């Protein structure tokens, strides 16, 4: 009897402990977002989005940094998506399971944990200097694509792995080749999961500052990029610059720019959720 009571008590205690842990994270996040909103919301208007950087906080805007972020995001997607998905398909469906593939597997997971500034140094040497891309949008996008490639590969593999073996067996039994099975069965079935992974990886890329500063992304750019070879700035660099300025108005600007950055991230996560639901229903 006593034993049962004690166990129930432990159960209750653990439950409340769990609730407390959950709340701690959520409350802190809510306070953070709340204070950012209070500081920055009144600063956001059309002028703020379409103006160039300025020494006067109330005149300064994020236009070039925002356009830079959008360019980098689009190019990074275009570079990382095909590479990551193809690598994941190879590892999951084609590669023979053995020492080599498990070595690859461990290393890809490790790469996902490498500090982003290391990717910046790699990008500076390979893309900016050896391939002579300069401090361009393209060099920045390649660098960020490398950065998120491990995440894309890992999450794509997970998504493909989640497709039941019976689907593969069925396809092969009907005489389909491996490529046909991958293209017509596995990819459509796992596409929602793949996309979720890709978009979460991109959400990380859009917030990166360090590797872009290392490859030479600028802080003051009076024009939006017009080609992948143009120089650029991105939102996080602009935010960082504003936060370290003495005049109080820049702090408000930084908060407003953070809201825009958060909106982009939320939007992207929303798209991920939407696609996941859509594709999962299709499969069912």
């Amino acid at each position, binding site marked *: 009897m006593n034993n049962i009571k004690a166990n129930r008590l432990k159960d209750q205690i653990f439950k409340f402990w769990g609730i407390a842990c959950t709340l701690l994270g959520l409350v802190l996040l809510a306070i953070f977002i709340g204070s950012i909103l209070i500081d920055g919301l009144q600063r956001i208007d059309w002028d703020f989005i379409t103006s*160039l*950087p*300025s*020494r*006067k906080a109330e005149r300064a805007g994020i236009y070039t940094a925002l356009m830079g972020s959008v360019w980098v995001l689009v*190019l990074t*997607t*275009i*570079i990382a*998506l*095909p590479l990551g*998905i193809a690598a994941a398909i190879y590892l999951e469906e084609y590669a023979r399971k053995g020492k080599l593939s498990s070595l690859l597997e461990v290393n890809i997971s490790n790469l996902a944990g490498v500090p982003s500034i290391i990717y910046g140094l790699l990008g500076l040497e390979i893309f900016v200097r050896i391939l*002579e*891309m*300069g*401090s361009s949008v*393209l060099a920045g996008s390649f660098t960020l694509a490398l950065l998120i490639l491990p995440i894309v590969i890992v999450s794509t593999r997970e998504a493909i792995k989640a497709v039941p073996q019976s689907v593969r067996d069925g396809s092969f039994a009907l005489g389909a080749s491996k490529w046909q099975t991958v*293209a017509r069965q596995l*990819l*459509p079935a796992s*596409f929602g999961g793949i996309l979720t992974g890709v978009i979460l990886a991109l959400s990380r890329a859009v917030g990166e500052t360090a590797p872009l*500063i290392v490859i*030479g*992304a*600028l*802080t*003051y*750019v*009076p*024009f939006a990029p017009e*080609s*992948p*070879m*143009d*120089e650029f700035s991105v939102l996080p660099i602009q935010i960082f*610059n504003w*936060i*370290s*300025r*003495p*005049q*109080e108005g820049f*702090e408000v600007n930084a908060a407003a720019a953070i809201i825009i950055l958060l909106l982009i991230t939320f939007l992207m996560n929303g798209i991920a959720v939407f696609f996941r639901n859509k594709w999962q229903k299709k499969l069912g």
Partner: protein
Amino acid sequence: MKKILFTSAMAFLMFACGNNKKDSSGSGISIDGSSTVYPVTEAIAEEYRNEDSEVDVTIGVSGTGGGFQKFGRGDIDIANASRSIKEDEKAIAAENNIKFIELEVAYDGLAVIAHPENDWLDCITVEELKTIWEPAAQGKIKRWNQIRSEWPDEEIHLYGPGVASGTFDYFTEAINGKSGSSRGDYTASEDDNVLVQGVSGDKYGLGFFGLAYYAENSNKLKLVGVDGGEGCVEPTAETVSNGSYAPLSRPLFVYVNSSSIQNNPKVIDFMEFYLEEVPSLLKDVGYVPLTEEEYKRERKKFSNFVEQNKAE
């Protein structure tokens, strides 16, 4: 699905192959370097757009050292710097056949700051600052009364910029005699706003940072005068610019590459505009202008440099 993959692969190939290197020099002006000088140059670039909107001026913030690295390789036209160029940086520039000119554009004062309720500290001598901040003070100088016996028997809490900052380099050189030599047991941040918050919330705190950060937060902080041997001087626009606030006022520089002057007349135009307009723009960014005499000297220096390089 196949279509998506196919289009993205095609687009990828197009981007990867289709864009051959574009000449990035052109009529643009590229600037990089110190984050301290950045706001000044940004203000000039902003105003210069009204003069000549055809010229794209871009400014990066890689720090003074990072800026000189690029400058020495010839990657940029102008370097922002919060200290003079070092010998090894000069050597690299010489190796790459880069000639340049150093121009002073403004003064920055370092302010020594205490909490507004601190009623015992109005003025501090350079020796006392050294007692507090020298490497030997680490772990030893912990209480206010260790510095001057009439000060309270309370713990002293120190705030200052981190080692990667030019402000730290300057302060340690001016006070401790050697750039970078300092005690390590203090609250350090590269972001001066964090230091402002630290000192303003700590009655027994003492810190130092750029004068502009004091000016924006003067209601939360107490400015401490510094005695460099000739009596107590508080940093103001006047004392910083006439040099009487010593040793904690420093000049800010820009460096111009001579080949940029030969190849891009817009660089000359931009620098003339810079030296003409900078005194009136400095108030907005919180720095102190040089005297009119000194600006004349710098303008003269620059026009001689231009003559020289054009003649070649």
